[in-house]
């Protein structure tokens, strides 16, 4: 299993440049920059689809293996994060750096959770809809949705409002947040490690 995973990992990594080149080709093919009529282009397009399918399957398999296989996780993630445990001192420093990364990541996650839940809306209503003679309003809310599509079902306003400022959770996509968190973990760990090693 270990050898099988290592082989698949090598295929995945060495396949990355091929996937990148084919992605560029697929982009030009879809925009019509490449002549669709030629047999070569058609074949290349089909081949690109096949490569993408294989590469995506590999990605899902390898990421699942990373979750469930401890030795494989250590082998791969340790390389990605530049984790070094050559002796007892480095093991201790790794522990300290990991603790610092864990705590800061948790703090960031709590902050992001607050930002994604809170809703603020500053608006004006027409004079005839004024409440106690006031037309300017500040509306505060707390939104929590278990599923993504629930978020989109926002109730429509019955009163015409002139929105001055509206904030309804983080405007960043979930993919971007996950990518930022992955990069943050790697950067934070390496920064903490460098600081401790000095």
């Amino acid at each position, binding site marked *: 299993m270990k050898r099988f995973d290592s082989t698949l990992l090598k295929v995945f990594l060495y396949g990355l440049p091929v996937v990148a080149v084919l992605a560029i080709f697929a982009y030009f093919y879809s925009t019509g920059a490449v002549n669709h009529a030629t047999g070569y282009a058609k074949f290349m397009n089909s081949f690109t689809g096949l490569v993408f399918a294989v590469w995506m399957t590999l990605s899902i398999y390898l990421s699942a293996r990373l979750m469930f296989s401890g030795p494989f996780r250590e082998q791969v993630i340790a390389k990605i994060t530049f984790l070094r445990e050559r002796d*007892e001192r480095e093991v201790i420093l790794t522990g300290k750096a990991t603790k610092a990364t864990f705590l800061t990541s948790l703090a960031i996650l709590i902050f992001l959770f607050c930002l994604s839940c809170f809703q603020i809306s500053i608006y004006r209503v027409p004079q005839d809809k004024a409440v106690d003679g006031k037309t300017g309003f500040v509306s505060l809310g707390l939104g929590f949705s278990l599923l993504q599509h629930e978020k989109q079902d926002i109730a429509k306003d019955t009163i015409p409002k002139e929105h001055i400022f509206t904030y309804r959770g983080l405007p960043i996509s979930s993919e971007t947040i996950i990518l930022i968190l992955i990069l943050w973990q790697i950067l934070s760990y390496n920064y903490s490690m460098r600081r401790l090693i000095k």
Partner: protein
Amino acid sequence: MSKSLPQLKIINRLHVFRAIQRMTQEQLAKEVGVTRATIVAIEGGGYNPSLELAFRIARYFRTDINTIFSIEEEIK
């Protein structure tokens, strides 16, 4: 609740022993199975080795652990 204990400062004569043996930090590190950075940190007082490593160092210099590592003073 818990009584604050005085901090113990561990000093070492590792550099002295190394100098007597005319060894480099790199050589000693190789002999006791650590990196050179760890030897540098121990000599500089920035890192206290584990009991296992302390015993390995003492065994390498064929001496007692107390001869190399000792407590200098108690800091409140």
